[in-house]
């Protein structure tokens, strides 16, 4: 942020407020914020908190699109506020709301327990195919083998994909795009042998077949994870698993 006091430009930021102890439902509040062309929406919100209204609450930390804290609906689209810039909305007004499809805890802060619970349910760690001691050194993994899962391991858990998924909004039981990407990340890692243990999540009623291929999750992903791809690849795997179950006791999973 350059010295904003010197700037002549102002932008209106319209923020969805909700203070559970005093508001029965959310409402929009407009703030007029001085800005420079290099200021992000996050910096605009920080200005509001620092100088206009200290009670505005939002999550943020790294400012560089890697910690995943600052996902918000900005002009109706799920985005990271740290890498969305105010200049792109000027001279119009920009509307900022809590991420869609999640309960609002307060102002721009959502309740994300559901995501964490789901993450904990998918065994998001290597279940070694061939256990190895430290003395044996690293597993060998070629760049091509790494490339198979690397994209899915880039998920920063920002939840934009969930805010982009109407199926999740309509049915929060749905495992959802981000978690499926992470599940897939481990299943296709050459070191992992735990795919069979994760198949229950994929096959469940709230599993992959809740997805109707809207595809917006992949559009909004700030890290090019393409969660829709993970979900849909697993539809094929799940179908295969279902049919192979008649043939082998282990099903289609490796």
């Amino acid at each position, binding site marked *: *942020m350059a010295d904003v006091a010197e700037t002549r430009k102002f932008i209106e930021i319209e923020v969805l407020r909700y*203070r559970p*102890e*005093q508001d029965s439902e959310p409402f929009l509040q407009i703030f007029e914020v001085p800005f420079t062309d290099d200021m992000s929406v996050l910096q605009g919100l920080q200005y509001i908190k620092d100088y206009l209204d200290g009670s505005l609450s939002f999550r943020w930390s790294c*400012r560089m699109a890697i910690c995943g804290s600052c996902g918000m609906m900005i002009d109706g689209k799920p985005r990271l506020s740290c890498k969305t810039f105010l200049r792109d909305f000027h001279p119009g007004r920009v509307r900022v709301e809590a991420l869609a499809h999640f309960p609002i805890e307060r102002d721009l802060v959502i309740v994300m327990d559901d995501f964490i619970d789901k993450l904990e349910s998918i065994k*998001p760690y290597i279940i070694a195919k061939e256990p190895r001691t430290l003395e044996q050194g*690293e597993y060998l993994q070629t760049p091509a083998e790494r490339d198979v899962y690397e994209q899915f391991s880039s998920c920063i858990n920002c939840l934009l994909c969930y805010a982009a998924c109407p199926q999740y909004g309509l049915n929060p039981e749905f495992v959802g795009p981000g978690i499926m990407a992470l599940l897939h990340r481990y299943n296709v890692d050459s070191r*992992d042998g735990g795919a069979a243990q994760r198949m229950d999540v994929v096959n469940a009623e709230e599993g992959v077949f809740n997805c109707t291929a809207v595809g917006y999750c992949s559009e909004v992903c700030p890290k090019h994870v393409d969660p829709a791809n993970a979900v849909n690849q697993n539809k094929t795997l799940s179908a295969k698993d279902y049919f192979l179950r008649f043939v082998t006791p282990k099903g289609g999973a490796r």
Partner: protein
Amino acid sequence: MEAYKVDVAIVGAGGAGLRAAIAVAEADPSLKIALISKVYPMRSHTVAAEGGSAGVVQAHDSLEHHFHDTVSGGDWLCEQDVVDDFVARCTGEMVQLEHWGCPWSRKEDGHINVRAFGGMKIERTWFAADKTGFHMLHTLFQTSIKYPSIRRFDEHFCVDLVVEDGRAQGVVAVQIASRQFTLIQANAVIIATGGAGRVFRENTNGGIVTGDGMAIAYRHGVPLRDMEFVQYHPTCMPGTGLLFTEACRGEGGFLLNKDGYRYLQDYGLGPAEPSPRNKAMELGPRDRLSQAFWYEQQKGRTIDGPHGAVVHLDLRHLGEAKLRERLPQIYELAEEFLGVDPARAPIPVRPAVHYTMGGILVDGRCAAPLPGLYAAGECSSVGIHGANRLGSNSLAELCVFGKVAGDAAAGFAKSVAPGNSAALLKQAAAVEQRALAILTNTSGTERIATLRKEMAESMENGCGIYRQGDTMQATCDKLGELRQRFRNVNVEDKSRVWNTDWLLAIELGYQLDVAEAMAHSALNRRESRGAHQRLDGFGERDDIQYLKHTQAHYAGDGPPRIDYGDVKITRSAPATRAYGAAGEKAEQERQAGREGKVPHG
């Protein structure tokens, strides 16, 4: 108040905290662990580390080389026995992370790849593209889910340590969503809360990096060691301070002044070769590079930008394909935040505060002088960074000393009996009252943001890349004033659910204490060493008087009391820190005269 009893409580769930939690869980699955963090673990600032993590793997490398790079990089203010232990454990920890799934970048044959880094004689930096910290953190977090004995307290803010019978016996944490306080009673407490870079204005750190754990330990009488050593990273985004990793230079990037000249050759780092030799030019250590920037600015050879002087980080000759493969995040940062395509134009950069070398005083087992208290990671001063940390040693530190702290705390927790819960609860209730007092003070007039801004500006003025007695004194005075004014702080928001206004005020209190420890430690060190460089007649290193660790002791409302501790020298006597061609010459002389000769100092 809720009370929860565990064997080990860990405050902070970044790399060090998570590694410590896993270590305790693996040491003894019957031990109960509380992992407390003011954010969800994957938001911790480890996530932002980019370049890589050190561990000797190449046949022509050795632990001895890693030891010497670290000790000389730290300008001999390192605990050499601890450095020995550290370098010996790094590679094992990196392999451990690999087994847990960390997507290390690979060579065609499937082995992990390493890259060059500043101040390192041989390539030994393990990396996962330019998102190494991100991948390490997520690997550790997701792996931690495997252990049922780890109970997480996500988005719980730690307000204080509970000390009873002369030992740490737990912490008091408040759930951010509900403002409900919990006493977490523990036989051992590990602090792993990270650094304090946000006390400066322009910095690479996330908003959460406010020195909480340092301040908490400090207020309980544990000294903060070597706090004057604050690292400026030479290549950061003007204005925001966001980081462009050292790996940009490790991959072959150049630093150019306004004439397109690789100015580092004028500062004893040459010769300038087409691809930087290890420990030379752009691969020199961070303190030297940031200092060179300062001199270029004095000479008027930098470029003026809207956020102050800049130099150019030139990556164009590496080509788009290599940049997309090795430095994808840097590519996007430059494009999205600066509108610069690094394959076609140089990136404007300037130094910004990056890392606090000092921290909570602990021994080589991560134990603080207060029994039952341990610390690991950036919040601690275990003694490996000395006066200047080498890039890629901090991620390795998180793992190595996270594990050491976990093992040590597990052992200690088993050796003592749980304390008197009633007494602890009484203390915790008092802690709650103190924490809420700042909220109920209705006559406050001072704005949190104003105090924070004045602190950060004052720290930048007094404790920047180059320092002088009078400006440091001014900063010390200013911090004293700010601490007074802080008593009159106004917390606008009185509500209970997700009241960040209140938490920011508590954090500001932590920051002011830590900043004061830094400024007074700096003022008292009348020499120049590593990241602490003075212009007022103390421009040389003074091993006679200052081959010592600074220790800042909390002294209530007054300024900290400063005293000094010994530095453990085992086999590397202080010598001239030389890089580039001069460094190679010095190295040859050192090897030639290895038998008993003390190098010139």
